[in-house]
């Protein structure tokens, strides 16, 4: 991603974040126990500071864009946009596997869910689907379960299936 696009997206995102944060900060209720600063004091300061810095970043980017000239900046951005989108899409797959794990683990329990997680991530990252991959996934899940569940005694999610037995 070219620097100008990067900073433009970064500045705009920070601006939105600051605005949302400030909007929530002003809604923080004051209390009879409030000190001089109050519960909303620091959040307001942080929100305003982020807003100001985001504006500076956008302004700086705008000036740089003007200096570089639209003709120079536009093709470069257009040419690079696809790889950036692809990068995000590739990463989104891994994020989606994580979200799926979060959704299924309360139902199927830790051991099956973590086995599926290992299997899915390894396959997504290029491991050839095979019995070997399945074996490694099961072995990895067992090692983790033995360590966290058995040795450390951490109550890993049992899942709804565990209640049937």
């Amino acid at each position, binding site marked *: *991603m070219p620097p100008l696009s990067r900073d433009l997206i970064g500045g705009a995102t920070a601006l939105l974040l600051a605005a949302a944060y400030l909007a929530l900060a002003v809604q*923080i209720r004051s209390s009879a126990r409030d000190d001089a600063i109050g519960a909303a004091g620091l959040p307001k300061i942080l929100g305003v500071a982020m807003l100001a810095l*985001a504006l500076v970043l956008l302004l700086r980017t705008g000036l740089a864009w003007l200096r570089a000239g639209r003709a120079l900046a536009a093709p470069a951005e257009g040419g690079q946009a696809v790889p950036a989108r692809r990068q995000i899409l590739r990463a989104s797959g891994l994020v989606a596997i994580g979200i799926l794990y979060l959704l299924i683990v309360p139902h199927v329990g*830790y051991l099956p869910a973590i086995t599926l997680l290992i299997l899915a991530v390894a*396959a997504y990252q290029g491991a050839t689907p095979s019995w070997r991959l399945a074996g490694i996934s099961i072995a990895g899940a067992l090692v983790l379960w033995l360590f966290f569940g058995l040795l*450390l005694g951490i109550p890993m999610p049992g899942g709804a299936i565990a209640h049937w037995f």
Partner: protein
Amino acid sequence: METLAEVGAQLLSWQLLLAAFIGVAWGVVGGALPGISPSISMALLLPFTYALEPTPAIVLLAAVYVGAEYGGSIPAILIRTPGTNAAAATVIDGYEMNLQGKAGLALGISLYSGVIGSLFGLLVLMLLSEPLAKVALAFTPPAYFGLGVLGLSIVASLSGESLLKGFMACLLGLMVATIGTDPVTGGNRFTFGYPDLLGGVAPILIMVGLFALTELFAQAAIPGEGNRVRSSPRIRLPDWPLARRLIPSQLIGCVLGSFEGVTPGGGGTVAAFISYNEARRWSRHKEEFGKGSPEGVAAPETANNVVAETALVPLLSFGVPGSNSAAVLMGGFLIHGLLPGPMLFQRSADVVYGLYAGLFAASLFQLAVAFVILPTCIWLVNRPKPYLTAFIYALVFSGVYSINHSLFDLGVVLIAGVVGLFMRLLRFPILPTVLGVVLGFMIESNYRRSLVLSGDSHMIFLTDPIALGLLIFSAIVVLGSLARHVYDRNRKPAGPAAAVKEG
């Protein structure tokens, strides 16, 4: 001298040595698992101490603390995941060394520096407990505020190519730190009705998300990202020229770790980051920092291992546990009918000497334990990338769940990972965000407590000598970093300068 003789005599006890060995081994493994903090590792062994004599019981717990502080550096170096909060600064250069195929050396430097830090911290604990305890007592809310600001002052030098983006990243961290219960009024802020957010967002969740998951997502997103030279599964301790080069950074870690350790709540994270920054400032090889500098591993690792020992000063001197780990250790004392504090030295001096002896043994046992465990760890991270990624993902999820037994925490870590990926793509540095999250609560709560104490007068920060000193030093650090940044930029207008590459 008398103390040393007593400690020497205690070292003949096989029970004590066994407790120290088991404690260190458990601590290293616990510290190496993301999510299992030193205090959790200690708490898991607490029930076993009932059956032990008081001295081996206390030594067992203290040795876990020592081992866990070292263990945190293992995943920091190998998989870019700090096993403990204090290992966050080790990620910067440790992981870079790993990418260059120098994992064995990075782990060796971390081990060697950790042992030096532990032994130095023990010496300080034995010989300077009394004067250092006075320093701890002198730390009032304004001084803690100053300490927090000092920690935050290194943001400018961790910002990489853009100071502006560094400050914005830091603000993001400070914003995250405001989530939860207000430290003064007890009101809720940004909790959106989720009870899981009432206690705030634990810094370790943000660190694991920003470091570990961001790295995994980036490896999935960017072809070639994370590809590295395979490391030999051998631990390499530094040779003499390198060991000599590391001395200044280790000294910095020793001094800063000693002071941070004795201040209740100061903690190893702040010590590690400040030591890293100071090591870079005084290094002859500044340009290597952020690109796999051995000093960048040595300074924070020395500091956080010193802290593991000196954090016991307030506990032993006043009975004040300055950290979660010290609180668990205090629990160990109480189980055996021992009350930490000034009278402990008179009523149960043998336990105190036993503790010193156990800590000494534990510091040395780190070497033995590491030489057994680390080759396996390096072998594991040399496995094919798809399997490694999958196992790290599963390990992170399992470790994070084990902190609070909460699936909500996994969601927080996932969000932090996604935010980290976007920060990386948009070239925002991650370290200032981590610092903001770690220090935000400390700064705000102590700032407001100071104002409550002074009747809303800011003069309290000028009349408290420690606060004033720390704030002046912070200003010097910020101005120095800004000046260096401007100088570097003018000298190399087109390049990213000697910035911290932390992606």
